[in-house]
C-alpha cells in the first residue's frame, strides 16, 4: 500500500512545481486527487494521453500539481475547453475537475449540455457546498437555512442535487462518492474513465474552514465522519422510507446507460460528407458545364 503510494507520488506529481499547494490542511481536494491518480495508475493510462482540465476555485488548482497534459481554464468553462480538446484529438482521455459553484452555477449551462451532447468525457465534481476560495459565499449546493458570508441570516434558496441533475440531463454514467469513502471513490472514478460517453462523479467533500466553521459542523475530521454517517448506498436507499432518508444522501452508481457517443457519431457525418463531395465532383466532371460555385 505504502509502496504504491510512493510510486504514485513519484510518478504523477510535478516535482518541478513549487509546492506547497494552496489547499487548507484537512481539505478533501487532496483525497479526490489521490483517488484520481490511483484510478489512472490502475487503468494503466499513459500520462501523455491524459488531459486534466479544471475551472476556477480551490478545485481549479488540481491540474497544476499533476504530471499530465493539464489546463486550468476560466470559471465554469472547463467543459467547453475539454469539448474542444476531445473533438480535436479523440484519442486523448479528457478528465475535467470542477467545484460545485464552478459546474452548476456559472458553468451550469455547459454542464447540462455536455451531458446532453454525450461526448466521451469524464467530469469529477467536488461538492463542498460553498465557494471556498472567495471566502465562503453560498453556492448552488449550499443547504437551505445554512449560514454563509452572503447568507448570514440563513440561506433562503434550495440546493441542487448534482448527480441527479446529471442523470436528468442525459449523462451516460453518474456516480456519487465522498472523501470519507476513498477506496469507493477510486473505484467509481475508474468506472467513469472507462465508460464510453459523458460520465459524472460527484464527490461530497468538506470545507470545514468556510462552510463547516460557520455552520458549527466541526473540523475536517468531524465533517468527514459525518459523510460516513449520512451516506447510504444506492441499493440500500431503495428499501428505505422517506423518513429514514431524511438528512441522508446516496452514494454509488446512479446511472449507467449505453447510448450513441457524439464523437463516434460524427465519424458517420465525416464519411457521408466525403461521399457527397466525391459525388458532386464527379457530376461536375461529367456535365463539363462551367459555372460559378
Amino acid at each position: 500500500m505504502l509502496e504504491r503510494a510512493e510510486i504514485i507520488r513519484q510518478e504523477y506529481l510535478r516535482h518541478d512545481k513549487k509546492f506547497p499547494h494552496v489547499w487548507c490542511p484537512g481539505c478533501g481536494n487532496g483525497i479526490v486527487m489521490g483517488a484520481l491518480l490511483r484510478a489512472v495508475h490502475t487503468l494503466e493510462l499513459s500520462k501523455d494521453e491524459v488531459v486534466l482540465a479544471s475551472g476556477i476555485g480551490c478545485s481549479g488548482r488540481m491540474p497544476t500539481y499533476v504530471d499530465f497534459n493539464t489546463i486550468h481554464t476560466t470559471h465554469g468553462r472547463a467543459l467547453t475547453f475539454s469539448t474542444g480538446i476531445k473533438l480535436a484529438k479523440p484519442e486523448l482521455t479528457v478528465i475535467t475537475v470542477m467545484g460545485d459553484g464552478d459546474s452548476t452555477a456559472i458553468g451550469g449551462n455547459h454542464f447540462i449540455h455536455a451531458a446532453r451532447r454525450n461526448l466521451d468525457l469524464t467530469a469529477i465534481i467536488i461538492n463542498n457546498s460553498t465557494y471556498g476560495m472567495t471566502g465562503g459565499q453560498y453556492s448552488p449546493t449550499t443547504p437551505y437555512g445554512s449560514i454563509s458570508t452572503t447568507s448570514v441570516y440563513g440561506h433562503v434558496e434550495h440546493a441542487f442535487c448534482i448527480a441527479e441533475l446529471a442523470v436528468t440531463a442525459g449523462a451516460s454514467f453518474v456516480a456519487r462518492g465522498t472523501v470519507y469513502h476513498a477506496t469507493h471513490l477510486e473505484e467509481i472514478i475508474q468506472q467513469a474513465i472507462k465508460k464510453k460517453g459523458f460520465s459524472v462523479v460527484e464527490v461530497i467533500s468538506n470545507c470545514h474552514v468556510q462552510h463547516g466553521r460557520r455552520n458549527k459542523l466541526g473540523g475536517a475530521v468531524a465533517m468527514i465522519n459525518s459523510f460516513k454517517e449520512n451516506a447510504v448506498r444506492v441499493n440500500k436507499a431503495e428499501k428505505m422510507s422517506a423518513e429514514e432518508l431524511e438528512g441522508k444522501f446516496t452514494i454509488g452508481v446512479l446511472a449507467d446507460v449505453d447510448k450513441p457517443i457524439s464523437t463516434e457519431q460524427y465519424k458517420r457525418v465525416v464519411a457521408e460528407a466525403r461521399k457527397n463531395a466525391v459525388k458532386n465532383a464527379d457530376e461536375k466532371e461529367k456535365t463539363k458545364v462551367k459555372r460559378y460555385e
Partner: protein
Amino acid sequence: MVDSENVKRVLLQGNEAIVAGALAAGCRFFAGYPITPASEISELLSIKLPELGGTFIQMEDEIASIGAVIGASLAGTKSLTATSGPGFSLMQENLGYACVAEVPCVIVNVMRGGPSTGLPTSPSQGDVQMARWGTHGDHPIIVLAVSSVADCFSVTVKAFNLSEKYRVPVIILSDEVVAHTREAVALPGNDQIRVIDRVAPDVPPEWYKPYADNNRGVPDMANFGDGYRHHVTGLIHDDMGYPTQNPQEVEKFYKRIHSKISKGFQDIQVTKTFLMEDAEICVIAYGSVARSALKAVRTAREQGVKAGLVQLVTLFPFPRKSVDMYLRQCRVAIVPEMNMGQISREITRINQANCRIVKHNRIDGHLISPDEILKRIVKA
C-alpha cells in the same frame, strides 16, 4: 471569366469567402452559435469541415464556442469561431484567456448595430474599440478589417498565419455589408497561398519550457498529446507555465507578450493605399466604408482634386508609422466610419503633423455612400 490553372473565379458572398480563406489556411475546427449576420459561416463549415476530415460543432452559447475553439487549438488544430456583437461580448473573458495562455485562434465578428441586441441586422463599425479593449487587463491582440469579398479570403488566411506565428488570438472585423455582398472573386490556388504553422519545440520533452522567451518572443508550442506534457493556465505564469506572483516573473511575462507583437509590427500592420502618391487630401477608411471611399476618391480625381485613400487592413496594433507618414503628407484627413469615431480617435491621438482631421460618422444603420465622402473631400 476563365479558370486559369492556379486561379479560380467564383461568385461568393463575404461570409463564404471567409470560409474559403479559413479552409485554405488549414482551419479544421469550428465551434459557434447561431447569430445573424454571421450564421452562413457556421452553415457552410458544417458541410465543408467534415469533407476535409475536420470538425464542426454548434455549442450552447458563444462562451462555450470560444472555449471549445481554444481547447481544439491546444490539441493542435487550427480553429475558428464566428459571431456578431452580442456573441462577441460573451466571448470577451475567454478571449483574454487566449491572450494570456497564448493560444492561436481566429474570431470573426460580423458587426451589426449595437449596443445590446441593437440594430439587427444593419451594418455598423461599432465594435472597433471593443475588439481591441473588450477583454479586461493589459493584453496584446491583433484586429484586422475586411472591406470586400476578396479581402475576406486573403485577410482570413493572413489572420490564421499571424495567429499561429505570434500565438495570439486574431479578430477579423467584418460587417453586414461585406458579409452579404456577392461578387466574383479570383481565389488563388493552394500552391499560391503561404500557410504558416505554429513552431513546434525541437528539444526533448524533459527540456521543454512551454513559456520560455526566445529571440522571437514567441515560445515554441507543443500540442496536447504530443508527448510534451505541460500546464496551461489563465493565471500569470512563469517559464514553465506554473502560476507565479513573483514581481520579476510577472513583469517579464507582461513585457514579453507585448513585445512579441511590437517586434512583428512590420509583418502585422497592413495598410493599402490608392492614389496617394501626390495626394493632398486623404480618406482613411476600413471595412465596407473603404469601398465607398475609393469610389469617392476616384470621382474627386476626375474633378481635379488631389485625393487619395488609405485603407486600414490592420486596425490594431494601430499602424501608427504608415498613417503618420500620410498625415504629414496631407493637409486634410477625412475619416468616415459607421460609428461615432472609434478609429478617428486613434488618428487624432497620433496626429503630430497638424493635419486637419475631419470625422464623418453615420450611425443610422446604412452604409456611408461615396457621395457623402465626396462632399467632404470637395469641401476640405
